[in-house]
């Protein structure tokens, strides 16, 4: 039985890979890192690139492309928290600005202050409708 380490590759949207590995190569922020079992606890960010996993009884290395994220290493376990999208500070910033502008645009043409009375009236009406439907439904049975 060869010496192995458990590796989990997860992203916010799905679990990508889970299994035992003999050797893992990850594209860390400061350059590629190779990790054997019983590595010291380490945490680092990952650049977009290929994650290579050498499994015990598989001759070929498993290749997983990740667009960045965080790598956590413990002696018996490796966790790759992969990003689902290509991320970058500028890219995120641009998205935030776009979202802000869209909101500003939408706010331009409407009246000033939050009208709680109107909001509650509107909701009360919707609730009343739902309740009426439920009552109607009960009475017909």
């Amino acid at each position: 039985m060869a010496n192995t380490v458990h590796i989990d590759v997860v992203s916010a949207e799905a679990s990508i890979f889970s299994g035992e590995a003999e050797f893992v190569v990850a594209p860390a922020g400061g350059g590629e890192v190779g990790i054997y079992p019983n590595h010291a606890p380490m945490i680092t960010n990952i650049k977009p690139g290929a994650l290579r996993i050498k499994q015990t009884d598989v001759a070929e290395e498993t290749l997983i492309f990740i667009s960045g994220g965080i790598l956590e290493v413990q002696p018996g376990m490796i966790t790759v928290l992969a990003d689902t999208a290509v991320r970058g500070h500028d890219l995120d910033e641009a998205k935030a600005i776009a979202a802000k502008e869209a909101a500003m645009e939408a706010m331009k043409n409407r009246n000033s202050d939050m009208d709680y009375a109107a909001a509650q009236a509107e909701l009360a009406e919707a609730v009343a409708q739902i309740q009426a439907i439920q009552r109607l439904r009960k009475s017909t049975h």
Partner: protein
Amino acid sequence: MAGSKEIRTKIKSVENTRKITKAMEMVAASKMRKAQDRMRASRPYAEKIRNVAAHLSFANPEYKHAFLIKRDVVKNIGLIVVSSDKGLCGGLNTNVLRLSVNQMKSWEAEGKKIAVSAIGNKAFGFMNRVSADVKSHIVGIGDVPHLENLIGTIKVMLDAYTNGEIDQLYICYTKFINTMKQEPNLEMLLPLSGEKLGSPNGSWDYIYEPEAQPVVDQLMMRYVESLIYNAVAENMASEQSSRMVAMKSASDNAKNVIGELKLVYNKARQAAITKEISEIVGGAAAVA
């Protein structure tokens, strides 16, 4: 046979409505299964990142991320409201919006300012109509929530928190309990509470590559994003189940209505026949 044609038309139209609601019910049922799977798929990531974040917040007492620091005076509050894009899903959106509005009202009464971020068409439309301060929004997410689309909207709020424009950040969404039960839920996202992170198992420290601070920053950002993503995924599962139940009851109602209309129609038909026979009998008697 007065009115019988109208009744026939009415029956036809209710039957058509029933066909639509039945189809929507089945579509929602199949989408619900997928939405639930996606909701579950996001759990391992949230669990793992929570563990790491918990560990980091304990291992690094000298560097505390802004998300972890509680502010003494809370003047401005951020609220992320998650709703569906489409209607016809029972009381789902109404419940979430009612909870948010009630909460906003009590905050307002305490003299706090509120900034809103709307996820989903219904929340955006509603918040706009009632003139809330909408800082960012996203509509038309579709059936599959992608974190990529949410990043910008979320970042506006997270940046506002880091800059001190808001002192607390809440999220309001529908929690998926089971197919028949979904509950509107209001949670505080920021500052991150220690209890929510929990305590780490073990007391070693990591080797940081290249440095602790940027890694912690990135991790905290991802953690909050994953919480919001999770809320959106739950909201979608809730939406589909809620729609399925609503459409099922609509189909049942239509069935009842059809039954009643058929009864009325047959009575009218019978009355017309009886009338005709008595007229013939009356006419025959007059001739004879």
